[in-house]
């Protein structure tokens, strides 16, 4: 027998009970209607009522991570229910197993609010089996539940839904929800939602809520390409110059009314109108990318103003790949609430192109995607509601072409990397993680490469060349991390804090830089050049950088300019005395006033005052040098607002050291230019004995 005949037999035998129908028809018996759960969700339209097949919910055979803790809720007091719910939420944090879950709302909510709550955390539809109404009545089954939602009337205090276990934690983190707890059939009749405000129950620590509103994210090392790039560590250049703080015990006396500049240059800054921007970065010198809640856009930038080049409506876009030079970008996005779209963004041509991923995503959801540009291998992990399908494809122009199913698994599959057309991925079961490989373009060809004790999570890098795998099995140590190297099919011990950014083989680990070479980590310079390979978020422009500010995009000078490539990364520690620091600030202030032609603004509005200030702040010889360089136009402002003075030698009459002037933040680390500085004691106090810069 072949499978076609097999399924014909199966479907003929069990789909309809022909004998029963025949018998009932002759008895004149009509069929009744069964109460069914109402399915809500999937689209933003709250009124979209999607009715799905079957009263029986499917259940994956693979029960990894699923822990059932249901019980008789009516027999428990509120506190016990809270504890139980917390345990259930924790134990099922990664479970895709479906449970009947009783959701107690924080007060009585409207039907629309309830739909918002219940659909906020799932990409798929949520069957609502029962609603508890504020008047004490219940709506049971699809028709009654549907009537409540359709009418929009009534106040709802609780609901019983059927959802994956992992949703409980997300629901518990929602301020509109008091509890989400597993319910049994018995609870349908006997249990009631908890109405006690959550604050009166107990402190519920539900752990990390960062991803509670999101479907499984597409991970890349370092928190994802579209991670927060608000760049809180980037100084806001729009602010006014900081006034210099005059030390109290210096003997240097400036002319009255003088307020010397720190050299902190506000520089260029431009802010757009409110574009609704959530992310923004320059992809090249002339084009910046903007992600809004419902679209991705490219703007052209001419140095003075922006103009919209192209916009594509797409919900919740997430970048899954960006080329090392920023010229191309692949994003996934939702259509009608389902992540099934893929677009490739071409900064050079200013185009946003639909990749046609629906051809293999179908009705599924994109759980992850990765692209290796060198080998032109695209891998997309598709979850179809029950299992994960790993597809490979390549780009034909902008289209994902020749898609083939490489692997299929009931549990989530981690994409690990690609090398020479071979795709590496892993899954975990029974406390073990298996790494497989398969040739792109072939069907169901996974072969085991390695087997590891423990369950490992994995973050593939943007370039799809390596993945950081972290053991999450507590018994084995939850900090054990390795880098998977596809080229050598080996694991390299690493830190959990390893980030590749958009680099192919360069990574940052605990503040140091390494290159993956021949299956090992080779330490490389801690330089801005290496930082730039990883720190892609700032800008792919050497001139400009885009920052998001309340929906607008602020454009400021890029820190990755040609001059900064020579800056050193580090964190020097100030060790100067108050007297020396004051002397430095005053001397630098005079230099800055001269170099930026802001003497008048600084209060040095007469030649006498300027001369007096130079005499006060510099030694005699340094003062002469300053005047000479000023006349030849050979002075450069020095930003001392975040400068660090490190004194190497110090005695009664002189001091030598290094002034580290911060030029920017690179890959989270400060970059400095270093200047030798010298002080000498003249006329009773230390004065700057050199011209900085």
């Amino acid at each position: 027998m072949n499978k076609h005949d097999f399924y014909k037999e199966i479907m003929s035998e069990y789909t309809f009970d022909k004998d029963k129908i025949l018998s009932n028809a002759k008895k004149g018996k009509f069929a009744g209607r069964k109460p069914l759960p109402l399915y809500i969700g999937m689209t933003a339209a709250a009124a979209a009522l999607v009715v799905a097949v079957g009263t029986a919910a499917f259940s994956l055979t693979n029960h990894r991570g699923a822990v059932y803790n249901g019980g008789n809720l009516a027999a428990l007091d509120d506190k016990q229910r809270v504890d139980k719910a917390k345990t259930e939420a924790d134990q099922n944090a990664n479970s895709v197993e479906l449970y009947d879950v009783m959701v107690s709302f924080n007060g009585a909510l409207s039907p629309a609010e309830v739909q918002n709550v219940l659909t906020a955390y799932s990409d798929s539809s949520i069957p609502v089996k029962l609603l508890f109404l504020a008047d004490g009545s219940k709506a049971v089954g699809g028709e009654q539940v549907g009537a409540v939602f359709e009418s929009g009337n009534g106040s709802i205090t609780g609901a019983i839904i059927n959802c994956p276990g992992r949703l409980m934690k997300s629901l518990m983190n929602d301020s509109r929800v008091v509890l989400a707890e597993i319910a049994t059939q018995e609870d349908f009749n006997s249990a009631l939602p908890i109405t006690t405000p959550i604050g009166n129950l107990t402190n519920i620590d539900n752990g990390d809520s960062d991803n509670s509103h999101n479907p499984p994210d597409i991970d890349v090392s370092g928190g994802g390409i579209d991670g927060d790039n608000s760049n809180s560590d980037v100084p806001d250049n729009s602010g006014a110059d900081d006034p210099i703080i005059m030390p109290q015990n210096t003997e240097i006396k400036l002319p009255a009314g003088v307020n010397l500049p720190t050299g902190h240059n506000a520089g260029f800054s431009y802010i757009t109108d409110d574009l609704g921007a959530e992310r923004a970065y320059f992809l090249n010198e002339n084009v910046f990318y903007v992600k809004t809640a419902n679209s991705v856009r490219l703007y052209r930038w001419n140095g003075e103003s922006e103009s919209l080049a192209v916009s594509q409506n797409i919900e919740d876009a997430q970048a899954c790949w960006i080329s090392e030079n920023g010229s191309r970008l692949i994003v996934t996005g939702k259509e009608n609430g389902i992540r099934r779209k893929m677009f490739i963004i071409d900064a050079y041509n200013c185009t946003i192109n639909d990749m046609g991923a629906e051809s293999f995503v179908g009705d599924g959801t994109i759980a992850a995607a990765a692209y290796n540009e060198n080998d032109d291998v695209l891998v997309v992990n598709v979850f179809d509601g029950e299992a994960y399908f790993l597809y490979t494809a390549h780009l034909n122009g902008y289209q994902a072409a020749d898609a083939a199913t490489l692997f299929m698994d009931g549990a989530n599959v981690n994409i690990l990397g690609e090398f020479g057309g071979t795709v590496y991925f892993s899954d975990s079961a029974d406390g073990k993680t298996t790494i497989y490989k398969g040739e792109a373009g072939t069907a169901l060809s996974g072969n085991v490469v390695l087997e590891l004790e423990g369950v490992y999570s994995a973050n593939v890098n943007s370039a799809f060349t390596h993945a950081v795998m972290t053991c999450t099995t507590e018994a084995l140590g939850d900090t054990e991390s390795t880098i998977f190297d596809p080229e050598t099919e080996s694991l390299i011990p690493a830190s959990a804090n390893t980030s590749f950014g958009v680099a192919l083989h360069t990574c940052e680990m605990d503040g140091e830089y390494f290159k993956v070479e021949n299956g090992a980590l080779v330490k490389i310079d801690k330089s801005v050049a290496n930082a730039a390979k990883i720190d892609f978020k700032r800008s792919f422009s050497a001139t400009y950088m885009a920052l998001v500010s309340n929906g607008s995009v602020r454009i400021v000078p890029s820190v990755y300019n040609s001059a900064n490539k020579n800056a050193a990364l580090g964190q020097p520690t100030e060790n100067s005395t108050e007297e020396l620091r004051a002397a430095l600030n005053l001397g630098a202030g005079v230099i800055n006033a001269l170099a930026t032609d802001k003497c008048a603004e600084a209060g040095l509005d007469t030649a006498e005052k300027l001369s007096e200030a130079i005499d006060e702040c510099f030694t005699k010889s340094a003062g002469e040098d300053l005047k000479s360089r000023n006349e030849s136009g050979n002075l450069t402002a020095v930003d001392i607002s975040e400068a660090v003075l490190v004194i190497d030698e110090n005695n009664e009459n002189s001091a030598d050291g290094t002034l580290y002037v911060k030029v920017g933040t690179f890959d989270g680390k400060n970059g400095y230019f270093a200047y030798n500085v010298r002080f000498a004691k003249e006329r009773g106090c230390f004065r700057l004995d050199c011209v900085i810069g």
Partner: protein
Amino acid sequence: MGKPEIDSYFNDVYAATFTAVSRFVTSHASRLQDAEDIIQNVYTRFYKRIDDKGYEDIESAEAFLINIAKFECRSFLASFIKRRERVKNMSDFSEEESAALDAELSRDEPLLEDILNNKILAKQIFDDIMNRDETVGRIFYLHFVCDMKLDEVADKLGLNVSTVKTKLYRTIEKQKKKFGL
């Protein structure tokens, strides 16, 4: 017209039309799970009709039943709106997957007969199909029982052929793994 004659006529019509009626209902019912109830009502109405008024005036029992089925499909749970979005711009199911699917379905596997004889396991396999999204059940029924080609199934269900093939392929692959088929 005596009862035995009605019953005899009904039995003949039932045997001759069941596949056509079930195909129509399977592809038109708002919810697949309602299909059996709808078919039940179709034949009950039909039986009452011929019991009350005879069947002499019925030229084509199948056409008559399909008309009843249309009415039943429209009226049964009409308050629910079935939203089935047609997937647009789908490219073809890959040739490799099509070939794999054809090979999968045509390969001779003696073990399958043993599974069919194991009623419990066979029912589990059936339930696994029906408990997936409702379209899967429809596709399996129309393709395997009603012998409709996949492009006909796609047309009947308002889906792209590629989607139909994908659903079929995925389900078979999952069942292979789950039940060792």
